[in-house]
């Protein structure tokens, strides 16, 4: 027995180093790897919640319709029925959340209409297009067309 201990003494020290090394590794590993890492896959599940917290700038059609009956009705009866309010008015979530203090700026009609309706060979043939310079004679579009229902 004694002889065995004496002969294997040189093994005890490396074993000690090994165990200590393993302990350090486990401690560091525990400290470095984020909580729940790998729950759904090779990533931090907390990232999903983090990304979901981003605030929305576009409120969405349904919210506008809840308050703006008049424009909703006008639009529904015309060719812009499927153009969302915020496609022309831009992101209005702050206004929808607090309409008393946040009043949206009205769109710049000249640039707005042309962006969609300016004639271009690359546009689908069945989309209504005009060469704005010739068509309007320099007058802003909404002197003749009503933006919410553009039919004359």
């Amino acid at each position, binding site marked *: 027995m004694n002889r065995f201990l004496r002969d294997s003494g040189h093994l005890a020290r490396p074993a000690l180093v090994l165990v200590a090394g393993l302990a350090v590794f486990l401690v560091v590993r525990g400290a470095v790897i*984020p909580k729940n*890492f790998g*729950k*759904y*896959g*090779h*990533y*931090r599940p907390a*990232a*999903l919640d*983090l*990304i*979901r*917290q*981003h*605030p*929305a*700038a*576009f409120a*969405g*059609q349904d919210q506008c319709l809840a308050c703006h009956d008049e424009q909703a009705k006008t639009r529904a009866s015309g060719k812009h029925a*499927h*153009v*969302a309010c*915020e*496609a022309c008015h*831009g*992101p209005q979530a702050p206004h929808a959340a607090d309409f008393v203090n946040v009043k949206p700026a009205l769109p710049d009609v000249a640039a707005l209409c042309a*962006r*969609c309706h*300016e*004639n*271009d*060979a*690359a*546009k*689908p043939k069945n*989309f209504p297009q005009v060469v704005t310079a010739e068509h309007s004679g320099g007058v802003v579009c909404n002197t003749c067309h009503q933006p919410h229902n553009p039919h004359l």
Partner: protein
Amino acid sequence: MEMTRRDLLSQCSKLLVLTATAARALEQAGNAPAPGDTYHMADHWWGMIIDIDKCIGCGNCVRACSQENQVPAGYFRTWVERYQVTEDRDHPLVESPDGAINGFPPTTRPGVKSFFVPKLCNHCADSPCTQVCPVGATFISPDGVVLIDPEYCLGCRYCIQACPYGCRYYHPEKDIADKCTLCYHRITKGLTTACCEACPTGARQLVDLKNPKDPVHAFLRDHKVQVLKPQMATGAKIFYNDLDGSVR
């Protein structure tokens, strides 16, 4: 104690049922959503349909994306390209002035086959970008959206190189890789993406491939759709209707 083979089997099967139930209960408890949150990741598999026949190149999607996600000026999570294809099909003229954030000037070559191609992250089911991330900062969520963990990304740019579609960029202020999130903060709240909300013609449509009531199933049945670079086998989930062969 005397134990017959019959006893042993019956005991074992009881044990098996018990463990399975316990495991199931544990799993349920672990995946329980936050109170008040009715969104279940397992019930969705997001993608998008892009109908080339409807795109008018107005750039509404690019502007909306930029406003919704505070994309730094000069960088794009989505952009629109205008193709002009002559007889030399291998070398179409492709333009995207400023990502088409203000639309396009009229075509320079009328009479040539031309069309618009909106592009964005393809949210690949087998995405090359997530495979190369050394730290697990980019990943595919359980509902099929390729995302970047902004707090965990090192900014090594491997993923930017790996994306075959050029959909990622290096964020100049945050010093991390950045890209389309398919408006994950919106779609998990029942809203559509900012680009789809702002699209006037319905050329872009967010789809949930796991929802049996989604019109996408009828659309995919009735139309001849294509994904970009199918030869890369990325499992792209942005489906293009009537895509010309010249599009890269």
